[in-house]
């Protein structure tokens, strides 16, 4: 089976700090990483391949530095990696991004399964997966916590708010995965060496059959109007007492006084 995994290079938002003086993000020293959800998607792809045979191709849209995360995927065991990169793709929202990814996937040829992480940790939209499926005319299954292959179909355990749905669909299919689906492996030394040697081809606008009006900032219906720091909650009352019993009692008293309970 042919598997395509879409990955994104993101700033590690857990490491992002805010400068309290200017309310702006301090980017220095914030590492760029493979989006954590995508790492689980890569792992899911590798496991499907190990069980069912086939090929894993990883793609990413981004600046040339994004080759780093593609090499990481090769080191983990992916067979091929392709970077989709062009100045004209810059500033794309989810609609323009998914349109561009769809054009690149058509160029790569046939596939049985496309895997994506549930969402990225910088944009957090969870929109590119379903929009990509829509552009390609394949069915998406989101929030996958387990994937089994059954002939030419997948059986997916889809996470809901308070239950799981078991859903079956025939190839081709696009699946977005949650973190609980697997425990990603570490790259082997052999894998890292292979990644170092690997040539990563780049697809630019002219390589793709693409409408120039639908890519990048120009092709993005949504526009960022304003960026600002979130309003912070203010610290309330802190109870410090040597006795847990007294502290608990004081809290209940305060909650009653404030008519919260």
């Amino acid at each position: 089976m042919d598997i395509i995994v879409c990955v994104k290079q993101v700033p590690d938002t857990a490491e992002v700090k805010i400068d309290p003086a200017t309310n702006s993000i301090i980017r220095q020293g914030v590492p760029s990483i493979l989006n954590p959800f995508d790492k689980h998607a890569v792992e899911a792809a590798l496991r499907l391949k190990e069980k069912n045979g086939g090929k894993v191709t990883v793609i990413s849209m981004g600046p040339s530095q994004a080759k780093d995360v593609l090499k990481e995927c090769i080191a983990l065991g992916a067979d091929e990696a392709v970077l989709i990169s062009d100045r004209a793709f810059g500033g794309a929202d989810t609609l323009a991004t998914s349109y561009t990814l769809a054009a690149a996937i058509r160029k790569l040829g046939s596939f049985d399964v496309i895997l994506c992480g549930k969402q990225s940790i910088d944009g957090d939209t969870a929109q590119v997966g379903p929009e990509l499926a829509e552009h390609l005319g394949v069915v998406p299954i989101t929030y996958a916590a387990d994937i089994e292959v059954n002939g030419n179909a997948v059986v997916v355990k889809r996470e809901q708010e308070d239950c799981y749905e078991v859903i079956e669909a025939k190839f081709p299919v696009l699946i977005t995965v949650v973190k609980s689906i697997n425990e990603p492996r570490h790259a082997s030394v052999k894998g890292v060496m292979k990644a170092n040697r690997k040539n990563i081809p780049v697809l630019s606008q002219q390589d793709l059959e693409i409408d120039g009006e639908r890519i990048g900032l120009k092709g993005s219906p949504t526009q960022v109007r304003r960026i600002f720091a979130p309003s912070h909650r203010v610290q309330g009352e802190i109870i410090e007492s040597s006795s847990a019993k007294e502290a608990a009692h004081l809290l209940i008293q305060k909650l009653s006084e404030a008519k919260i309970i």
Partner: protein
Amino acid sequence: MAVNILKETCIGCGTCVNACPFGAIAMETNKAVITDGCTQCGACTEACPVAAIIREEQEKLGTIDKDSYKGVWVYIEQTGGLAKSVGYELLGQGRKLADALGQELAAVIVGYGIKPLAQQAIASGADKVYLADQEEFSHYNTDAYTHVVADMINTYKPSVVLMGATHDGRDLAPRVACRVGTGLTADCTDLSIDEATGLVAWTRPAFGGNIMATILCPDHRPQMGTVRPKVFKRPLMDNSRNGEIVKVETRVQAAEIRTKLIEIIKVGTVSCNLEEAEVIVSGGRGMGKPENFTLIEELANVLGGAVGASRAVVDAGWKPALHQIGQTGKTVGPKIYFACGISGAIQHVAGISSSDIIIAINKDKDAPIFKMADYGIVGDVMEVLPELIAEFKELKQD
């Protein structure tokens, strides 16, 4: 729009480099330069101390007749004839948007045997209800629902469409937006009308909750967004309200439905439906070991609440992922949120900031969670929790 740096004015201080949320400004020979990553958000224009950065408004060539799109729509998500609260919450806020625009508010309900929900939507503020009541819609199905909702949008042309940012909402909304070719803003925590343009101003957290962004969709219709549950208050129902019910006759052929629901697996006995919970008791690493979560469960039980967990706890395998709260888990907004042994990393805090009251229990008095808690107890959770459980039990008996 385009963001430009006035080379003459730029003093090369580098303030804008740090101010850019997208890392899209570089310094070249002591002057700032805008690079590819620019989304033209304008954060740098405000940061520049010498006003050397300007954002020019640029008319995009719209290809659609925007004026033919009218009305605010709220998608009411339901399962088995029971509507999720977020739909009603959005009718409350949708009413305000519709009034500000001088347009009607409509509810969209897709399902089977769902007619009673139409009256509830009207009582919650809708002027009109589009009802797609067919057997093929009896359970959420990505293909069937996308087909019918996109079809309704193309037929009736609403100006604004709101959906809850639930699992199914975040599955449906992007497919519909893509199919009708419009913009979509995810996981909004505030909605208003931008006075200058009359557009919906969609505000949402990004970068793991580190920044907020306000987004517009100027030239495409409808303007679409998903909104997190519990951000807006559910309006009181007024059963004297009248509204029109429009039966949607769209049918979906069996061949168009490419997924098959095989079964639904229920999990656990303790509620993990955190999105709808009024009280949540959450535990973090500070609980020490997984067995100690029985105290969290007991307190949740006494208060009729749900059980949450931090990312660290889920990553360590102490609790299943369905309980995870935070940027990569669930976003919650209960009346009371108990954070027990949770330090308060930004990624957790981003998921709880719309709670009415946050109560933190932690033995480290410098834990960041205390900075945002309404009430805090500095102490050992293993000692404090049993006392709290006893106190609440007593209260309940009175």
